[in-house]
């Protein structure tokens, strides 16, 4: 098989998609988390500041979802079709929640009536929470495995998705994004809202650590295939060890009010958790619980080598561009949020 730098093309593309999804998790993660926390702020001004903290960047963050989707479509079309049609109802709810979230942010400020703003506040919080939970639920089910027949068709139903493990992963994702979002908001705010957020960040970190421990234990105990790779390559154990250290570091930096460092570490933990899942799944993405032979690996699903090479080139040109405007936009809107006449 054709390789680049000793890595075969499907694996390389698996890494690219992993990188894009990580980018999505790190970037949209904080604005989804900020949305999930929205109703914790009581005053109109606080809510406006929280909203404007993500105002100029959330749209750019969501681009990473679109690119991840496109990359999966292009690189592993069979997986793209299988995952999306298997999770038909969760994805439809996900899409509708994305719509509600976008319009909540956009429409809230367009009228001054209290009921109007309250309605969009609730919609913003509910949709952000639902999106995060659904992403976690889908991820949880991919790790857990689902019943697939020999034609790689899903044989379960909607209730199959609501197994305890996947629900736990859904809430772990929510706790992670809430923590990530709270740290972001604390960096962007001052005075009373800042003071309020410092308390909130603390509670979020406790919620996350609890979920993190529960999720790690359940994965070790109930999901044996996730640990196979680690048994084969023991040096990989360095990553979970690093993850634990990162979590402790987030807590330590929050306690000493170094929020930027805490944000860097909460971004790292998002990346590390996704890396751990990727190592556990590789080279499969769909794991069949009925018969391991019905699983779908990246080799089975990959596009032609030529298509993958073209896509790698597109990614090699495109990703630095996207990163550069992401950095440019974040740099332009650095510092604490100040409301003005153009704000939401």
């Amino acid at each position, binding site marked *: 098989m054709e390789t680049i730098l000793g890595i075969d093309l499907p694996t390389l593309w698996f890494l690219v998609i992993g990188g894009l999804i990580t980018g999505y998790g790190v970037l949209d993660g904080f604005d989804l988390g900020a949305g999930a926390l929205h109703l914790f702020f009581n005053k109109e001004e606080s809510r406006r500041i929280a909203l404007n903290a993500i105002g100029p960047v959330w*749209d750019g963050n969501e*681009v990473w979802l679109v690119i991840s989707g496109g990359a999966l*479509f292009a690189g592993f079309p069979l997986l793209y079709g299988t995952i999306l049609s298997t999770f*038909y109802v969760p994805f439809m709810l996900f899409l509708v929640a994305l719509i509600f979230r976008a319009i909540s942010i956009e429409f809230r400020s367009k009228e001054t009536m209290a009921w109007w703003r309250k309605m969009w506040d609730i919609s913003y919080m509910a949709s952000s929470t639902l999106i995060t939970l659904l992403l976690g639920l889908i991820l949880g089910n991919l790790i857990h495995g689902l019943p697939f027949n020999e034609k790689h068709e899903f044989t379960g139903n909607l209730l199959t998705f609501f197994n305890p493990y996947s629900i736990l992963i859904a809430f772990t994702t929510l706790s992670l994004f809430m923590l990530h979002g709270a740290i972001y908001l604390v960096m962007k705010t001052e005075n009373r809202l800042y003071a309020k957020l410092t308390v909130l960040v603390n509670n979020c970190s406790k919620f996350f650590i609890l979920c993190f421990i529960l999720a790690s234990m359940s994965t070790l105990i109930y999901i044996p295939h996730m640990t196979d790779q680690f048994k084969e390559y023991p040096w990989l154990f360095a990553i979970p060890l690093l993850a634990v250290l990162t979590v402790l570091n987030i807590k330590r930096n929050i306690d000493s009010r170094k929020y930027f460092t805490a944000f860097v570490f909460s971004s790292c933990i998002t990346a590390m958790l996704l890396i751990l899942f990727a190592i556990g799944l590789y080279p499969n993405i769909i794991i069949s619980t009925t018969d391991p032979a019905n699983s779908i690996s990246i080799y089975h699903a990959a596009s032609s080598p030529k*298509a993958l090479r073209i896509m790698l080139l*597109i990614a090699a040109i495109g990703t630095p*561009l*996207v990163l550069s405007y992401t950095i440019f936009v974040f740099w332009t*809107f650095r510092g604490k949020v100040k409301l003005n006449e153009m704000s939401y």
Partner: protein
Amino acid sequence: MPSVEILSRIQFAFTIAFHYIYPPLSIGLGLCLVIMEGLYLRTGKKMYEDITRFWIKIFALIFGIGVATGIVMEFEFGTNWAVYSRYVGDIFGSALAAEGIFAFALESGFLGILLFGWNRVSKGVHFFSTIMVALGSMFSAVWIVIANSWQQTPTGYVIEGEGMQARAIITDFWEMVFNPSSMDRLSHVIIGAFLAGSFLVMSVAAWYIIKKRFVTAAQAMFKVGLCVATIAALAQLFTGHRSAHYVSKYQPAKLAAMEGHYDSSAVAPMYIVGWVDNKTGKTTGIKIPGGLSFLTHGSFNAPVTGLNAFPKADRPSAVNFVFQTYHIMISIGMFLIALTLTATFLLWKKKLFSQKWLMTIFVWAVMLPQIANQVGWYSAEVGRQPWVVYGLLRTSDALSKEVKAEQVIFSLVLFSLVYTLLLVLFLYLLNKKIVHGPEMTPNEEDDSDEFSKRNIKQLQA
């Protein structure tokens, strides 16, 4: 219960048609924004900055809904058309991914600067961001139309595997990108979008002119819109002709359906208006004799391949629908040329803005490019049936195997409710913004918003 196929087709048609209200407006408005802000930088007149700010707000509203409904489209390929996704992923996927990474990222990244960056970046950087947003919206169209054109006229691929395992594999990226129809269709789509955006600008401006509000600013907006619209309307004649020509060459069944032509041995007319009876295979109406023969072969007497040359299973069944949508598009196109040329002539004579009747037409004419864009796509997509990839993959074979009818009904009902709400809110907020109008900088020569003048007088009194 209706079949999964028909439900999925209805859902895709509904969600894409709704989505397609917005991108043409963003593309067209993006160009108008570049012109307005360019005029501001060139002339230094505050008035141009004020109208640019005004239209950026409207752009953001349109863009927001365009994004929200556009993400649905990307994922719907996988949810409802899993076999299609697997079949075309090697080719279609790369175009879609290129759209995300090159176009959408550009547009979304710089939109934040456009909206919130007025006081944070220099004028030059702001203008640069406006150009990037406008280019991003056009690049989106580039990749999406390339992907769709590949479905119409596939090239640069081979088929690998057999039966239900078959899939298209890319052999030449540039041959895929420059497939026979992509450039003609792309120019047709982009110019259609310019018409949609410029007519929105003119509609709002004409309304202000009739109401005698912001008259100087409204006239400036109108001129920008008219300039884009006149050139676009004329250019559309050319790209439209090129598009029809490619259809005649590569999709004869679609062309035959567009003109309701059945008999392959006959000379084919071109209809102005008409009606097709698919049962009897008869088309009646006002026609140019030999018109289609001339388009296809350059001769008024040459026979043209008709629908009867294709087995029933390989040609579109909704012939009258394809015919009507195609002809509505053409009639609107012709009307827009007449309308914009009349307006340009009157502008040259310096009589344009006093013609209340014409301004009233322009207020409502915003609907016309929208309708033409919509029906043009209906004709192109329904005319391609029963194929989803022309000649290669049938729509009925492209479905997700495990998705059940009740699931699609659930999502279809959900989208119908949400999109209805979305449309109502969009129109309400758009109307509100338009009624409110641009925030004009005071003391500027004679920006005569009667309302604000009155307010200022009251304040002074």
